[in-house]
């Protein structure tokens, strides 16, 4: 399959996750503000506002991970590696992204277990508003899996595109 098609598909998946994360952020902001407005004006807030905000935060974080991964936004320290040749830097970058992909795989594996169990037992929130948690836990798996693909993409780029640097990797979606 053409590598560009894979790359484009991955970009679309990341963009879809980012839109999901943005919507979650908006929900968090408007529900939080609406709740306070309701409490202070009508003496009645939005039922379950806190639970909605909690689940929205989890969704925003996990669905936002692929975007951060694609943008190479994670905090790293390049003082030592910048002293090495470009070739060595690329090899190290491949190793570090492989390390990241491994850790993300462990996280995704256990997140999948958690989502599956949550669905099987129909896990719900506890509080004023009761709703199922498994969609958020599924979003967690989706975000982590897309992040793994992004990390692997960066491994491939650092091996097969020697001039590639962090900035070029983090091309806009």
């Amino acid at each position, binding site marked *: 399959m053409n590598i560009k098609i894979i790359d484009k598909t991955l970009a679309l998946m990341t963009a879809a996750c980012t839109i999901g994360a943005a919507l979650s952020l908006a929900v968090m902001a408007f529900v939080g503000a609406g709740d306070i407005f309701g409490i202070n004006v009508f003496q009645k807030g939005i039922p379950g506002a806190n639970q909605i905000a909690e689940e929205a935060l989890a969704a925003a974080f996990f669905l936002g991970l692929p975007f951060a991964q694609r943008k190479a936004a994670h*905090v790293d320290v390049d003082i030592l590696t910048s002293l090495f040749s470009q070739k060595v830097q690329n090899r190290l970058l491949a190793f570090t992204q492989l390390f990241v992909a491994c850790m993300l795989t*462990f996280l995704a594996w256990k997140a999948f277990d958690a989502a599956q169990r949550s669905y099987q037992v129909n896990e719900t929130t506890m509080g004023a508003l009761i709703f199922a948690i498994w969609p958020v836990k599924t979003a967690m798996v989706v975000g982590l899996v897309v992040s793994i693909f992004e990390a692997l993409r960066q491994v491939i780029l650092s091996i097969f595109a020697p001039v590639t640097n962090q900035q070029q990797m983090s091309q806009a979606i």
Partner: protein
Amino acid sequence: MDPILAGVIAIAVLLSLVAIRVPVAFAMLGVGFVGLCLLRSPLFALIQLQTVPYALVASYTFVVVPMFVLMGSIAAESGLIKDLYRAAHIWLEELKGSLYYATVVGSTLFAAISGSTIVNSAMFTRVALPEMIKFNYHRGFSAGCIAGVGTLAALIPPSLSFVIYGILTEQSIGQLLIAGVIPGLLTAVMFILVIKVTIWIKPSWAPEPAARHSYRERFQSLGAIWPVTVLVLLVLGGIYTGILPPSAAGAVGAVGALALALLRRSISAPGLRSSFEATISMTAVIFIILIGGMLFSRFLLASGFVTEMNLLVSDNAVSTFMFMASLVLVYFVLGMFVDPMSMMVMTLPVFFPISQAMNIDPIWFGVIVIKLVEIAVITPPVGMNLFAVVSGAEGKVKTSEVFVGVLPFLVAELLALSVLFLFPSLATYLPEQMMN
């Protein structure tokens, strides 16, 4: 295995991974995970991986993080910085070096609605540096000034650094945020003093003043400040009076910033998109570091390292002064290489319990830690604010010039730190009033 040895090996492996550019979050995650596998069992470590990420993130207390970031991003995108800077300059233009002072005042005001030091520095580089260069201000000192005053966002609420400290140490985020007000203003005053002294020693670093605006124009410029005033009253007023918990204050601030930007017609669709993207990216980066830090600190606790360190400190009768001096030293050295948040996540699991065993006020300790973090972000060679300024300057100023230019502001920071050591009530007065 001896707990101290296990902890030292883990820290050494962590630093080695960070040195070869493994992202800090994943390095902590990896070391914590492997450490728990070896120390307890792989099953125990996998259970931690399954429970920690979701349990940590799906918490109402942490909603404050993305909300404060969103508020600051929208405010920055809507051109508030330019308005603040212009107003500050118009009022201060009769002073020699007025643009330096305007940068301090504008940045202090913007810090009251933005919790990120890097956003503060990067945005002021775009707005203030071209003006300073145009009027023949000293390039290095101008860039150093922007990097230095950008750190005020770490102290003045809504500070992300305090939120992270509160999360890591389980202290009241509301009290911590309010505790930063006086130290933040104190630091701003120190910056102004340092600018005054520097211009007195090096008069050529600032052009002569040239007043150009009438009082009518000056008062008109204040009109630009009302959105900031509204946001500050909403967010800080809400937290201080106890009407709003920090997370709700963040949500109100984010919606308020959006409403004000729409009302002033100062934000475009791409600007809004950019605000959300910046928030998503920063949220992901912050929370993955917190997850990694949580795994790492669980390993340190499980290994007995933290307990042994506490015993070591108490057995050797280490005084509070010695402990704080070593804290300053560790942060100063680490700050040259590691970013502030990672530094806090890596060190607080060790230092905070020791500070509590020594009966150090956790709020005051938090202010000192954040002050050290502030200093770290402008300490060459890796001060993150310095690089934010260098990259935002787009070649207008060299890295070496920024390194030299920021030194007077480092002195100002150290002076402010000394004052906070001598008068701890400067940090604890407002939170105590808040509790009363």
